[in-house]
């Protein structure tokens, strides 16, 4: 059985085993070349590496303790002691931005990992089995999408008290709908294809067909939507934290740093302060979007380099 199986594998267009047997490196090389040709994508990737690096090494890079308050230095302008100034409680803005990057990226990556997992499983089941199961699951997706997400997020935060973990859980549990639709589409188009039929005839279990035969074909779009998804979650987290319903002070997050910006003292006397957190959000989300677009083109076999 195993023998026949292995012998047939190379006939399938693309699957996990396929990659490991033939042309694995070649495919990646082609993709990498296409990606590197996209200037914006490369800029995005470099920015991302820098931001992730800054987040990881925040304790070493930060000049001060991010929650240390020096009230005498409150609203200090950018200068020698405070490279990017100090906030209304006399905390160093640069240090808070660096530590805030950790929170934003952690929430972004962890939530998207969760929502991609849920969305892939549900989308795969709906697309592979079809019928009533598919109809029910897709109506649930439609219903969740109909809720303006901010309303839903805020409602859940009021119930489960905001913390990093509840935020991640909420983003994961309600953020999977897009991935589910995408994966379902891929499965619908592939489930009647010849290699799946062949696998069925060989008596391979549904689980195995779903995960090791069809899923690898859908990996490209999944990775692209994950990349764009991280940017989306970072924006949503910033919004919630700005409203005071996300990451709670004194833990710094780019969103809650902007919450304290809406204060006449800062608006009149420290106009530079609100610029930095907003700029960080902008750059990070932009970088994720550039990389996502670059990956989309790199994965698309119709676009040649």
């Amino acid at each position, binding site marked *: 059985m195993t023998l026949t199986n292995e012998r047939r594998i190379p006939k399938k267009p693309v699957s996990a085993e396929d990659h490991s047997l033939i042309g694995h490196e070649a495919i990646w090389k082609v993709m990498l070349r296409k990606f590197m040709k996209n200037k914006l994508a490369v800029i995005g990737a470099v920015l991302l590496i820098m931001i992730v690096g800054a987040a990881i090494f925040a304790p070493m890079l930060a000049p001060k303790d991010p929650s240390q308050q020096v009230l005498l230095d409150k609203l200090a302008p950018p200068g020698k002691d405070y490279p990017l100034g100090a906030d209304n409680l006399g905390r160093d803005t640069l240090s808070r931005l660096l530590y805030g990057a950790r929170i934003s990226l952690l929430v972004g990556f962890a939530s998207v990992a969760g929502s991609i997992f849920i969305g892939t499983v549900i989308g795969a089941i709906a697309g592979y089995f079809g019928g009533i199961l598919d109809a029910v699951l897709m*109506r649930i997706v439609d219903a969740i999408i*109909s*809720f*303006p997400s901010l309303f839903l997020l805020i409602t859940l935060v009021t119930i489960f008290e905001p913390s990093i973990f509840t935020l991640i859980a909420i983003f994961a549990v309600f953020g999977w709908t897009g991935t589910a639709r995408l994966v379902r589409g891929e499965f619908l188009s592939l489930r009647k294809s010849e290699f799946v039929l062949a696998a069925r005839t060989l008596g391979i279990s549904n689980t195995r067909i779903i995960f090791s035969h069809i899923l690898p074909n859908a990996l490209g779009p999944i990775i692209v939507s994950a990349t764009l998804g991280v940017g989306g979650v970072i*924006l949503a987290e910033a919004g919630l934290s700005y409203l005071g319903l996300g990451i709670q002070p004194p833990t710094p997050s780019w969103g809650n740093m902007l919450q304290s910006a809406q204060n006449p003292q800062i608006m009149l006397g420290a106009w530079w302060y*609100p610029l930095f957190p907003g700029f960080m959000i*902008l750059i990070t989300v932009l970088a994720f979007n550039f990389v996502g677009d670059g990956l989309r083109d790199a994965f698309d076999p119709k676009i040649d380099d």
Partner: protein
Amino acid sequence: MTTYIIRRCLMAIPLLFLISVISFGIMKMAPGDPTALMMDPMIKQENLEAYKESYGLNDSIVVQYGRWLGNMVQGNFGESFIRQGVPVSELITARLPNTLLLMLVSTFIAFIISIPLGVWSATKRNSLQDYAITVVSFLGVATPNFWIGLVLIMVLSVHLGWFPIGGVATYGEPFSIWDRLHHLVLPAFVLATADMAGLTRYSRSSMLDVLRQDYIRTAKANGFRQKTVIFKHGLRNALIPIITIFGLMLPSFIGGSVIIESVFAWPGIGLLFMEAAFQRDYPVIMAVVVIAATLVVIGNLLADILYAVFDPRIEY
């Protein structure tokens, strides 16, 4: 056509049903029950039970859901926990006009800016303008719009004093349209920025699709002027897909109103929702969530029907 409209309306019913089930489920996850918030904590157990019985909190969950749904369909959203005795529907109807005004004006702004930009970008494909517009749209997608709001308030209101800092009207002044407009401009513009980038991209690609069609070439070959071809033959057809896009953008638009109304202290549904969220006033929270989701479903329904009306190529 009529059968399509009827079928499309019927399809919305299971969706609304699911929305109500999800909302009810979320409400039931909330810790404690209304009695815990409304009653004196020293209340005797038997009195508490009597209250629970009278509020129907001891009935089975299905019965509770049925009653809640029945009331809601009739426009009865219960009473606010915090402002006791005030019906939720009253709180909402008091704030709704402000939100609708804000959304209408900002939709108008988003369309009046994005569509011409998209068309311009499409007709001058790969030119400097096209690239500039693309870059700006990329930036627009990545910028949190509450931050744009903050920066605009800081620069235009606080430092330059051109616009009021927030609210719908100057306190204590008699009603004047000029004053209202003055307060409306900034929040409406900032809310519009949320979808302007996407709308510009869509109108650009929609216009490009249309410009590639045979009939456009025919029109050009017949010697119509460039302007006539673009605006009379092209634009009309390019606008059709944008109807659907508007339907898809509706959730983010309504959601965005929460944050923009908070930034500008605009007393609409979004601000009501935020106040309720901070006070854990669940009847108000749930009413707003259900109304918002229903608005989205209705908006999508209208978009689909309009699409069918405007695009004669689609047969049903």
